[in-house]
């Protein structure tokens, strides 16, 4: 389509092309499956249930369950989750169900254990409430440590970048005003035919970030396009293959469907800042992203896609062959996806507490002081942490009362030998939750506070944070 529009123009392309097929195969966390187990004898009104040790929720009557893709196994967390349960079932594998209940006069049973395959289920439908983002950001990391995110593993100091989505092959990008996509649009879903049932949650059309809600029969799906996955230290998810046919009804649609990667822009965003509004570093188009390299701060950074571009092409190709073989018929949507909704942030009733309000002056010393002098400081000020600074007040390291005790036990008297030089720090405008996670994650008890000039402006300790929680 793109080549045809470029060589012969929109008018010819609109006449010659009937349908453009699109595709994506990416991690879609807001996915899951509804299953109906049928009734046991005596019957049970399930209260809690687990499949292969993954808790599945019980949203309805007695034996309807929802397998959420991101729910993790209680015995193998971060390795196996709801996404894997769905894949295993789609694959025809047997899974173990365990359930408990409180028991009623009509549903007396309180415990249940059995094994199941998809053939034993009455209904087994993929019911995904947010899939197929029109476009998504490119993620990178400014911190001095590796971070593990839903955008994959991000190396320190902008060591790499990741993105998602298939750009010019992305279904919602080919019909960006949702002229043909809406409730009732028949689509390729997980290797079978499914339907769009409405806009997805967090649908954000004004930001070119539309989403869809979809439904499809898992019993007919293929695990090549429904893959359980786990992101290290983040959690589990489900990769879903989705393809949407775009009927080229007029020249306008032909033009929109011929949009190229180089015209589809997104932002490079710093995931090193764990806030709702993460800093945007630059704009980038999908052509650059697919080249494997982008420039950030004048430096070449390796970038790769988290969703399978090869899989996306296979989805679009498969859908094309179905249409050509008359195995798939396009539908007209009964209602277009909305274009007038916005994606609001959460209403919060409690204000965020920042480090600024907790920080107090740090007791500091210079690197050339003796261990004895540090011991005196610790006693005089009744503190456990002494921050080592240079003449301009810049951080050089930290010494704790434990370090001093150890130095005395080992007969060391030079401060330089016992300083911890790799110090985790915080900033006055960092939320307390973020600092608290740093303490827990690294097993430490204090963070020097560094101001905008790069100087030590204070310190916060684990004790300060626990006092805050008791307030």
């Amino acid at each position: 389509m793109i080549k045809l529009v470029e060589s012969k123009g929109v008018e010819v392309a609109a006449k010659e092309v009937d349908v453009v097929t699109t595709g994506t195969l990416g991690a879609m966390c807001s996915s899951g499956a509804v299953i109906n187990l049928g009734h046991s004898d005596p019957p049970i009104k399930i209260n809690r249930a687990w499949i292969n040790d993954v808790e599945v929720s019980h949203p309805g009557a007695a034996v309807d369950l929802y397998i959420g893709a991101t729910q993790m196994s209680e015995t193998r967390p971060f390795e196996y989750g709801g996404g894997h349960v769905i894949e295993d079932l789609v694959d025809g594998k047997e899974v173990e169900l365990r359930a408990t209940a409180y028991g009623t006069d009509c549903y007396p049973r309180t415990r249940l254990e059995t094994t199941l395959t998809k053939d034993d289920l009455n209904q087994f439908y993929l019911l995904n409430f947010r899939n197929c983002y029109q476009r998504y950001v490119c993620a990178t990391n400014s911190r001095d440590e590796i971070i593990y995110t839903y955008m994959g593993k991000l190396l320190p100091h902008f060591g790499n970048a990741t993105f998602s989505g298939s750009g010019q092959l992305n279904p919602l990008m080919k019909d960006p005003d949702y002229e043909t996509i809406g409730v009732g649009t028949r689509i390729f879903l997980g290797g079978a035919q499914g339907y769009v049932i409405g806009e997805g949650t967090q649908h954000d059309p004004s930001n070119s970030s539309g989403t869809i809600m979809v439904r499809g029969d898992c019993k007919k799906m293929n695990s090549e396009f429904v893959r359980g996955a786990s992101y290290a230290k983040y959690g589990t998810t489900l990769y879903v293959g989705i393809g949407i046919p775009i009927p080229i009804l007029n020249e306008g649609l032909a033009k929109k469907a011929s949009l190229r990667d180089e015209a589809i822009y997104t932002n490079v965003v710093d995931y090193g800042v764990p806030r709702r509004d993460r800093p945007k570093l630059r704009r980038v188009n999908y052509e650059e992203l697919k080249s494997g390299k982008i420039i950030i701060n004048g430096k070449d950074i390796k970038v790769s896609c988290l969703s399978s571009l090869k899989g996306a092409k296979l989805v679009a190709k498969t859908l094309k062959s179905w249409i050509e073989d008359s195995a798939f018929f396009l539908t007209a949507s009964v209602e277009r996806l909305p274009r007038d909704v916005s994606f609001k942030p959460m209403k919060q009733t409690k204000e965020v507490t920042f480090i600024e309000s907790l920080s107090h002056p740090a007791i500091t010393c210079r690197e050339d002081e003796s261990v004895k002098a540090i011991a005196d400081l610790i006693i005089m000020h009744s503190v456990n942490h002494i921050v080592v600074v240079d003449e301009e007040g810049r951080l050089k390291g930290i010494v704790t009362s434990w370090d001093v005790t150890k130095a005395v036990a080992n007969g060391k008297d030079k401060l330089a030998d016992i300083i911890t030089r790799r110090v985790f720090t915080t900033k006055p405008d960092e939320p307390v939750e973020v600092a608290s996670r740093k303490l827990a994650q690294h097993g430490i008890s204090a963070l020097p506070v560094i101001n905008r000039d790069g100087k030590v402006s204070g310190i916060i300790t684990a004790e300060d944070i626990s006092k805050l929680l008791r307030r």
Partner: protein
Amino acid sequence: MVKVLLHFSEKIASQPITSQVIIEQGTTINILSARVDQQGGEMLVEIPDEYAEKMIEAFRKKGVKLEIPKLIEVDKDRCFDCGACVSLCPVKVISCGEDDSVVFAEDRCLGSTCGLCVDACPVRAIKLVL
């Protein structure tokens, strides 16, 4: 070329052993990655085939422990070409092929001295193996 992983204990970490072996044996080695500090560390090197035996012996005599490093093994059936590993590879072993396949040039891999890609694979298709 023979790929060898050298282990330096705390005792010998501050000695210029690698330079000594290179001077004594009169041949060069290719240092692929190194992580050595005062507490000891590891270095992954490539030694030309014809010198391998003599060099390995020379390192051993100086107290260096040697082993053949673990490299990565990719389960092609599990891999579905997502690309989560590609941007993490520091030595261009992993790249995107013509047809958007994820391609591994395993022979250049730094193996267990790097391993950045291993836990990043969403379907656990990459393993370190001997």
